[in-house]
């Protein structure tokens, strides 16, 4: 939908629009208004959905299992033309465990989690440190760079490609496919399906390869994982790889980009981080995750659920508004200010409950390594043309163009 076709929103409580350019640029005022007037809002747009805005409600709804299903975790109803429906992969293994409910969610998650614990991601830390410095080498002699395109966007695809053990030279393809699914594809079902199938075909070939030529990588490890004495089926491994790519790229680059956007525009915070110790880095990263939480997931009711004064009917979509929850003044003091040394920060940027982001440790590490590497070599920087900054929103919110000037 183009902006000229977009109907203006006249009542947020009954007609919010997650793709409204003002909402994408800064959703905080809309959440504040709704928390005061209609904490669980509804819209008919994009197939209809509910939007909780209070921390307590988002926490409660994230834990409504099995009443709310994760089988269709995208934020809008994708209405595929009939002739394309049979090409679309449905079911729990499309991207397990994120697309699964218990019991499949439980065993697929158990198969995946050991590879993403704080201790398991050591090799990725070393890799990320080298990568970030190589990227900075590429632009540090210039007057500036695009912090989103030249830096943030380049990091997560390479880290996850390295972990999966796939060809690094395909990174531009990965970026294109993932944006085709999560960004442009949300309003273009054909592109979404095509991108999704390209990812699946790519990983189907990788899985066939690892079954005969095992390597030292995550795809091999998943191929060799047994649940109750049986290997994971190919379809499940392919779905898990799909998840790694789709969930591991847009999200983390959005967080790194939002952090750079913040510091480029907030001189005092930038100066403070240029001299930060590890304790301040830890709280600052959590605070940036809270304030600029990129990810909104969704559930679908599979039975009638009455909660918080609303009745959700079977099939209704409910947005897991983790970003909105993280700005709730009932939980966070001064929620709409970035407080770099915030000590109490029970944010839910990575979700809550059984679908807590499986890659959260990897994402935090990438944020820490990328921002520390940047600040070590580029402690002074400002925003270039503010009007040239663009934001993506919907499922994953973050800057997509971010001109930065050094010095």
């Amino acid at each position, binding site marked *: 939908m183009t902006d000229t076709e977009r109907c203006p929103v006249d009542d947020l409580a009954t007609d919010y629009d997650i793709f409204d350019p003002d909402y994408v640029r800064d959703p905080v005022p809309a959440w504040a208004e709704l928390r005061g007037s209609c904490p669980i809002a509804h819209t008919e747009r994009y197939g209809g959905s509910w939007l909780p805005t209070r921390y307590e409600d988002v926490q409660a709804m994230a834990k409504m299992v099995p009443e709310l299903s994760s089988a269709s975790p995208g934020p809008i109803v994708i209405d595929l033309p009939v002739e394309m429906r049979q090409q679309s992969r449905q079911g729990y293994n499309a991207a397990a465990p994120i697309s699964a409910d218990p019991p499949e969610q439980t065993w697929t998650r*158990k198969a995946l*989690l*050991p590879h*993403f*614990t*704080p*201790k398991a991601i050591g090799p990725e830390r070393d890799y990320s440190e080298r990568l970030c410095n190589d990227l900075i080498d590429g632009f540090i002699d210039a007057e500036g760079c695009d912090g989103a395109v030249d830096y943030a966007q380049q990091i997560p695809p390479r880290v996850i490609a390295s972990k999966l053990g796939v060809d690094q030279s395909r990174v531009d393809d990965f970026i294109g496919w993932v944006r085709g699914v999560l960004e442009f594809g949300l309003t273009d079902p054909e592109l979404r399906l095509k991108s999704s199938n390209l990812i699946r075909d790519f990983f189907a070939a990788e899985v066939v390869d690892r079954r005969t030529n095992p390597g030292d990588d995550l795809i091999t490890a998943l191929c060799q994982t047994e649940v109750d004495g049986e290997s994971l089926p190919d379809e499940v491994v392919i779905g898990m790889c799909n998840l790694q790519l789709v969930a591991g790229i847009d999200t983390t680059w959005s967080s790194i980009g939002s952090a750079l956007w913040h510091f480029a525009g907030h001189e005092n915070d930038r100066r403070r981080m240029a001299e930060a110790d590890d304790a301040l880095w*830890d709280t600052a990263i*959590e605070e940036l995750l809270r304030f600029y939480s990129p990810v909104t997931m969704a559930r679908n009711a599979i039975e009638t659920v009455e909660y918080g004064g609303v009745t959700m009917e079977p099939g209704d979509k409910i947005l897991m508004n983790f970003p909105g929850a993280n700005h709730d003044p009932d939980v966070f003091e001064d929620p709409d200010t970035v407080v770099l040394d915030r*000590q*109490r*920060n*029970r*944010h*839910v940027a*990575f979700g*809550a*409950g*059984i679908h*807590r982001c499986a890659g*959260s*440790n990897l994402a*935090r590490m990438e944020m820490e390594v990328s921002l520390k590497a940047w600040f070590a070599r580029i402690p002074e920087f400002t925003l270039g043309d503010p009007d040239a900054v663009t934001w993506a929103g919907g499922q994953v919110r973050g800057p997509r163009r971010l001109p930065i000037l050094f010095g």
Partner: protein
Amino acid sequence: MKIHVDRDKCEGHSRCYALAPALVDVDDLGNAFELNDGVVPAGMEEKAQLIIDNCPEFAIAVIED
């Protein structure tokens, strides 16, 4: 002071482990458990409160003052 991580509530956010590896560890799935039977060494009471206040699952509690 004694703390306890409720293993049914913990979902592996690892914030406690990042903030206070002397008080908690994580298992092979990344889920947390208290060290030293939950006994908080003298002088680390504030750290214990910090990990309680930063758990997104409300999974850590003081079980003995």
